[in-house]
């Protein structure tokens, strides 16, 4: 039963990944992160992704603050935050989010407030979606690793 569970989870994980690729949410650079993970750096992917979440939330808060909570709209500063977000998002393979940032940045270049507001809303929505999906992916991965470890107890050294 446990062995079967591990295979089913594997299938779930692949299905979710395929979906995210198909939707254009992620691109191959997300997979590149996994190439960099090995025994010497076993938590590399989750470390980078958590770093990304932490940084992105700060940037999104700053953007919201600049656009909505202040009377003067510093499009230049928004552009700087967006450059950062574009850089880190493309580095981890968050393709759709990157595209939304680019549209937002274009709106700042034209000091287009309604355009910026729309872009911010879409960006925040996309970020939530991405974060949920990545958490789901990590969760399945964890479950699968547990199930696989139970299936092959000889691989564990703690007995």
């Amino acid at each position, binding site marked *: 039963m446990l062995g079967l569970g591990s295979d089913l989870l594997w299938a779930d994980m692949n299905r979710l990944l395929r979906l995210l690729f198909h939707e254009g949410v992620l691109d191959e650079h997300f997979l590149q992160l996994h190439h960099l993970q090995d025994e010497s*750096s076993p938590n590399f992917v989750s470390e980078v992704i958590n770093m990304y979440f932490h940084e992105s939330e700060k940037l999104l808060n700053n953007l919201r603050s600049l656009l909505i909570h202040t009377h003067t709209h510093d499009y230049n500063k928004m552009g700087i935050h967006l450059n950062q977000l574009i850089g880190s998002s493309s580095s981890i393979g968050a393709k759709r989010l990157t595209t939304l940032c680019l549209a937002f940045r274009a709106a700042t270049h034209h000091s287009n407030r309604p355009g910026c507001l729309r872009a911010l809303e879409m960006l925040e929505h996309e970020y939530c979606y991405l974060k949920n999906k990545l958490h789901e992916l990590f969760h399945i991965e964890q479950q699968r690793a547990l199930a696989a470890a139970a299936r092959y107890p000889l691989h564990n050294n703690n007995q």
Partner: protein
Amino acid sequence: MGMAATESQQFHVLAVDDSLIDRKLIERLLRTSSYQVTTVDSGTKALEFLGLRENHDGTPNTPSVSPNNHQEVEVNMVITDYCMPGMTGYDLLKKIKESSSLRNIPVVIMSSENVPSRISRCLEEGAEEFFLKPVRLSDLNRLKPHIMKRSKLKDEDQKQQVIPEKIENLLEVQKQHQPQEEAQPQPPLEQQQQNNNNSNKRKSMEQSLSPEPTDRTRPRYSGIATVV
């Protein structure tokens, strides 16, 4: 005048990037490729690390630390982001190439934006390579010839004996990171690039999807870039 310490067979790369995430990525990429890495978050810190300080009038001093005496600060290559606040990667490149003591250190520029004029400007200023971000493992394979070439120029007699050993070391360490199904004979460097693309560290996720496009080993800007 050869390499002072025989145990530092690894090449030391100084990576410069203001983004925390990109620093983490480039550090991991370089370590995975068996380079020793130091990361800094600005061009000014990079110059400090290299031992170059400026006079008030802007002319650089010779480094306060001789590279041959202190193995730990010897840098074999600098890889830097282009867009950074304050001193850009291009400014850093210029300063390095203007320095009599540092100008032989190969400099690689990274940028998330594909701007041909930017690329040619950097290459004209003396950059060895220009990488588009996000940087991949396969991109780093293009660095090996530059490093090997520099070693040869720096110390002909000693290193010519050591180099074949080093190449084998690098290949050996890479093989360890990429366990392969059947034992294969040591491939030459060009084939190794292909192998890296096809049989990179496999994480389960990747197997279900179609293989990555393998066209990144070829130089991207064959008209502009220096072809090794």
